[in-house]
């Protein structure tokens, strides 16, 4: 792999940019791999990357039914934060946030991580109490957050109306080292690094069945033929239920559609990420100038990547009250992603009833921020059978009643 650098740009400028090589190879699948990862999104690729980097396992195929990073990795609002209430969540999300800080250097790929700060507005007394509690919890967990006053909110984000008649801003949970990153670049960067370690990334290859012998996985059947595997990682977000059915077990997961939209680009007006959970809306400004807006999820099972108009209306109506200046913005695009919701709104990183099969799913509405940490923990789990960051997120927590309840902590989509 040729490294990207300022020197490389100068070199290519002198020879008509003909020397750039493809970022990753697209080989045909081999008959067998030590590890097969299903799903070439951020989480799947990060899992493969850390398997190679931390555990020396590189005989890996990452297979993907569509194109690389074309699922929820390319459909989110790119927010990165780690201000969670429960200890296991704070541990894995903070690990993830810290890995984002060095990701561009680690991967030699600019993921445009921008630690611009994330604030979660408290617009009811209930939220004020909740976020104060989270700030105290974060202090004990070593996550840098603080509860800030409405005046400080106004200083950090002058376009906000903090005296809204319905939902005045009463304060905010502020994480200065949170921010955003370029979502596609995260997938592309990991893919390039994985390919460089000798792993095969196989796109347009759909899994149609999972072969087992004596309760142990032996191969996956795909549209490109059977691929043998020693271990299988299922990292397919909203489609986890389907894969689990092929492997013969059920997951405590329901798939719903979550949507987002972006406005036309405007001049820089907002250099922080703002989340308003009471009114189900969050917003940040991309480097292109578009306002990136996320809203609430559907409440019913849904595999269509569309979303529905009344959710847009709800979200935009609430945001216009808090940000009056966006009322005349035109919206450019709207899309939906299929998110995998668990009962306690926390992810599942776990062994399964089938030996050799591991799942990484249930990230729900907040998976992008977790990509590097999720991959780190999943790789350790697959290599060693247990991992400090993953153990609390095992499947048996539902049977044993060990919930990691973040739905109460976040209030809504998080």
């Amino acid at each position: 792999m040729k490294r990207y650098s300022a020197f490389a740009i100068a070199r290519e400028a002198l020879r008509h940019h003909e020397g750039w090589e493809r970022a990753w190879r697209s080989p045909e699948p081999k008959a067998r791999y030590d590890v097969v990862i299903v799903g070439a999104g951020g989480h799947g690729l990060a899992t493969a990357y850390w398997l190679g980097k931390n555990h020396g396992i590189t005989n890996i195929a990452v297979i993907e039914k569509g194109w690389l990073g074309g699922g929820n990795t390319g459909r989110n609002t790119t927010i990165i934060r780690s201000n969670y209430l429960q200890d296991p969540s704070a541990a894995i999300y903070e690990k993830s946030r810290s890995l984002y800080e060095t990701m561009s250097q680690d991967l030699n790929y600019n993921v445009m991580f921008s630690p611009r700060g994330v604030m979660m507005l408290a617009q009811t007394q209930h939220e004020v109490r909740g976020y104060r509690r989270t700030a105290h919890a974060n202090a004990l967990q070593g996550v840098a957050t603080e509860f800030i006053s409405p005046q400080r909110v106004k200083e950090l984000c002058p376009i906000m109306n903090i005296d809204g008649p319905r939902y005045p801003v009463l304060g905010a949970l502020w994480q200065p080292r949170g921010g955003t990153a370029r979502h596609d670049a995260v997938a592309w960067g990991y893919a390039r690094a994985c390919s460089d370690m000798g792993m095969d990334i196989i796109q347009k290859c759909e899994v149609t069945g999972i072969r087992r012998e004596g309760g142990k996985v032996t191969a996956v059947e795909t549209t490109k033929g059977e691929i043998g595997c020693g271990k299988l990682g299922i990292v397919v977000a909203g489609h986890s239920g389907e894969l689990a059915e092929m492997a013969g077990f059920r997951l405590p997961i329901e798939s719903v559609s979550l949507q987002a939209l972006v406005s036309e680009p405007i001049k820089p007006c907002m250099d922080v990420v703002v989340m308003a959970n009471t009114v189900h809306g969050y917003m940040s400004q991309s480097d292109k100038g578009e306002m990136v807006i996320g809203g609430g999820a559907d409440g019913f099972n849904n595999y269509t990547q569309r979303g529905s108009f009344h959710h847009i209306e709800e979200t935009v109506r609430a945001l216009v009250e808090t940000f009056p200046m966006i009322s005349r913005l035109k919206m450019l695009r709207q899309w939906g992603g299929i998110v995998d919701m668990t009962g306690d709104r926390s992810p599942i990183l776990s062994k399964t009833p089938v030996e050799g099969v591991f799942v990484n799913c249930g990230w729900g509405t907040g998976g992008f921020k977790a990509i590097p940490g999720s991959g780190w923990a999943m790789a350790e789990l697959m290599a060693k059978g247990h991992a400090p960051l993953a153990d609390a997120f095992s499947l048996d927590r539902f049977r044993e009643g060990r919930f990691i309840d973040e739905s109460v902590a976040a209030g809504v989509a998080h």
Partner: protein
Amino acid sequence: MLLLTCPACGVAADETELAPGGEAHLTRVGPDGDDASFEGYLFQRANPRGVHFERWRHVYGCGKWFHAARDTATLEVFGTYSAQTTAPPDDILDKIKARRPGWEGNA
């Protein structure tokens, strides 16, 4: 936007008038159930990409619960039926089979 006809009051309501209630026809586990069957009842869901039987409530209408048969991949609605049943009625199953010849039912 999803449109469902409430079988209790006959009103064709859109999704803003309704509240989703999750998978239908779950078998409640009694006091003699073991941990695994309680886990199944409380948390594990079929979550199919395709035909799905589910519970809805006509919240901003008559307030009654009812059942719907729907396709989660296309949003096609096969029909709605009374909440006072433990399995989908035959006429709904016939409609589904007419539209989805290969469908074998949800496990």
